[in-house]
């Protein structure tokens, strides 16, 4: 056990911080942009920001060098993440590519796929979306019915995906399709990469409870996908899908957002006056705030423990299963506490001119609930922990 950073790591942190001071975009992008309804100019600026991060060498530090990474240990990546939060840097537009499909391709993709896709993920040249859920396949993901029939060197895809975040501006989709309808449901699924510009794809917006267009329905009408876009083996896509889900759970459970929310909540509690004193000194709210801070710290060390396990090449055990459940619920609890702290101001829509902090909290309160659902609801996470972690018998 040693929580000190090496002098090289400390120097690296200073270097990242200095770079952020000099390079952080000053206009147009909000420090913490969860707005999913991005116009083209915002999109372009976010892509330019990601490219700048990449050119500086601060993206995907743990990835192998040949695919644009730095082959560094994950501590460096965590230093960059921490400094990004501290500097209120914009979120990375290519997040799903970097955190989900990229690591999946590194483990499961063939050489051609890695060379073809990974550099473009990092350079924000291709933005990815996730084609998993369907109208009839939500929590029971493996019952999905989007059909892909192999015809020569191409799959012909027909069906529908739903809740597809970012599909309206994504260039590529990693998609689960049924390639063998007669096999048991987990055994007839394949994992394919689909160019969103392929003829036959229709993207229709869905409006989220926040009032924005964040996710979509995606329809496939005889969409032809080259066979070489298959990741892993035919009909063995469920394992690949789970690798991505594992990365997704870790991405969603990451504490960088959580830390930022806690800092904002503490600032809110310090500046909100209630009964002649700051809310942070109200005995009841103070207890709640301390409890939330303790849970954030616990999660922080929990993630550090897993980081260490990965560096040491150890199995993180039971702990890794809880990241998504704990992390997303904690974010929502932080936002809920902030809403309570705001009293009547919590009732205002974010574009009301009296909204506090440009409506940050009402939006975050809703958005964070979306992440408690997406990537497998908390109920599904508990099933996963119980069945895969604790080996309790499957009920299905």
């Amino acid at each position, binding site marked *: 056990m040693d929580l000190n950073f090496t002098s090289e790591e400390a120097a690296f942190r200073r270097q990242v911080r200095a770079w952020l001071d000099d390079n952080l975009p000053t206009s147009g992008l909000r420090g913490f942009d969860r707005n999913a309804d991005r116009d083209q100019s915002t999109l372009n600026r976010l892509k330019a920001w990601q490219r700048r991060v990449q050119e500086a060498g601060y993206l995907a530090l743990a990835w192998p060098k040949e695919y644009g990474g730095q082959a560094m240990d994950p501590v460096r990546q965590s230093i960059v993440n921490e400094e990004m939060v501290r500097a209120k840097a914009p979120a990375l537009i290519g997040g799903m590519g970097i955190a989900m499909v990229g690591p999946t391709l590194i483990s499961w993709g063939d050489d051609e796929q890695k060379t073809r896709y990974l550099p473009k993920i990092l350079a924000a040249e291709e933005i990815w979306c996730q084609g998993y859920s369907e109208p009839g396949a939500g929590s029971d993901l493996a019952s999905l019915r989007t059909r892909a029939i192999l015809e020569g060197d191409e799959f012909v895809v027909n069906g529908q995906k739903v809740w597809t975040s970012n599909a309206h501006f994504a260039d590529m989709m990693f998609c689960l399709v049924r390639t063998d309808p007669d096999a048991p449901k987990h055994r007839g699924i394949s994992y394919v990469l689909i160019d969103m510009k392929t003829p036959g794809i229709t993207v229709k917006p869905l409006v989220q409870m926040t009032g924005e267009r964040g996710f979509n329905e995606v329809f496939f009408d005889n969409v032809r996908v080259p066979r070489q876009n298959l990741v892993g083996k035919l009909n063995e896509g469920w394992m690949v899908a789970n690798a991505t889900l594992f990365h997704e759970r870790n991405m969603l459970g990451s504490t960088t957002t959580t830390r930022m929310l806690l800092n904002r909540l503490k600032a809110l509690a310090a500046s909100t006056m209630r009964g002649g004193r700051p809310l942070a000194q109200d005995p009841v709210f103070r207890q709640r705030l301390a409890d939330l801070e303790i849970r954030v710290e616990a999660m922080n060390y*929990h993630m550090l423990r897993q980081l260490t396990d990965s560096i040491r090449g150890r199995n993180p055990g039971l702990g890794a299963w809880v990241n998504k459940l704990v992390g997303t619920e904690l974010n929502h609890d932080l936002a809920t506490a902030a809403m309570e702290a705001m009293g009547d101001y919590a009732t205002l829509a974010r574009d009301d001119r009296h909204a506090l902090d440009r409506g940050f909290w009402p939006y975050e309160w809703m958005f964070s609930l979306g992440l408690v659902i997406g990537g497998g609801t908390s109920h599904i996470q508990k099933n996963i*922990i119980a069945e895969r972690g604790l080996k309790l018998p499957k009920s299905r």
Partner: protein
Amino acid sequence: MDFGLSDEQEQLRASARSFLARECPARRMREIVADAAGLAPELDRQIAQLGWTGLIVPEQFGGAGLGMLDMAVLLEECGYAALPGPFLFSAAIAAFALAAGGGEEINSRWLGPLAAGDAIGTVAIAEANDSLNPAELTTVARPAPSGAVLNGVKMFVPYAQAAQFIVVAARTGPGPREVALFVVDARAPGVKVRPLKSLDLTRRLAIVELDGVLVEPAARLSGDAALFDRVLDAGAIAIAADAIGGTQRALDMAVEYAQVREQFGKPIGSFQAIKHAAAEIVADLEPTRALLWYAAYAFDALPREAARAAAMAKARAADVYSRAAGKAVLMHGGIGFTWEHDIHFWFKRARLDESLFGAPPFHRERVAALGGY
């Protein structure tokens, strides 16, 4: 940056787990708690031979000179087994107090024998007003020509009945922080120990009455109020470690039962209501274990963070243990409410762990104050 146990600590954990499974299974634990004093001298002797009593005692007094993280690893296993007896209070808290504040004379007299398993120590901080705030201490140490004279009544003192020495917190002046710790020989004239009946039978508590007890100058530990704070932190971490182990045990017992108990024609563990309750325990437990490790490490290595870390670990671990033990009882159904089933020992131990050395609201307030809210 390396946040994990060392190979030696992993070995300590594994050997403690197997030793306690062999020497203190639930059946044996029940025999020990049936004893009037709740003691198991033979088991305590084995524990001393393993070097556990001297784990954090400096080498010059016969110990291994290890740190609070090593002790936390061990105490987690003691909590897992619900090990009865004074080990935690003696080897973790009293030993720390002496190692940190005792001079050569007092440590040769008490700390060496403690490490060797020949003496039991305990700590007496709380009083009838149930406050851990030094400003509210009422026990007084009045200067005397040859040391000090102690007068007062201490409450909730763990295993004072069995202890040879008691580390007593007492007021040395009128100021809110004018307090010090004194090492009192339990057989000294004026010391009277009266047992309390504790809810958790794996822990014994007592009242210690101090009526004009004379202690020599060397018995006053150096550090005064700062040492008082450190001893509270040591106690918080030790109890938090016990709580983490107890939570793991409650989970393991509930999961094991859910795999074999059948209702509606299948194991109850196949029902989502049961699965989710178990998963919630895991989700509480795993991050809190990391928080405990951090607090134990910070106690030795990060002085500026240590107090806040200890407060966080105690507040959270105590909450998590109580909630987990309650869920585990419920998952057992009717059998969980019987005396015959073992789970109630952990349920009650969780209650004691929640209270001793500061309940969660007390520590959350410290986290708030130390965090500058």
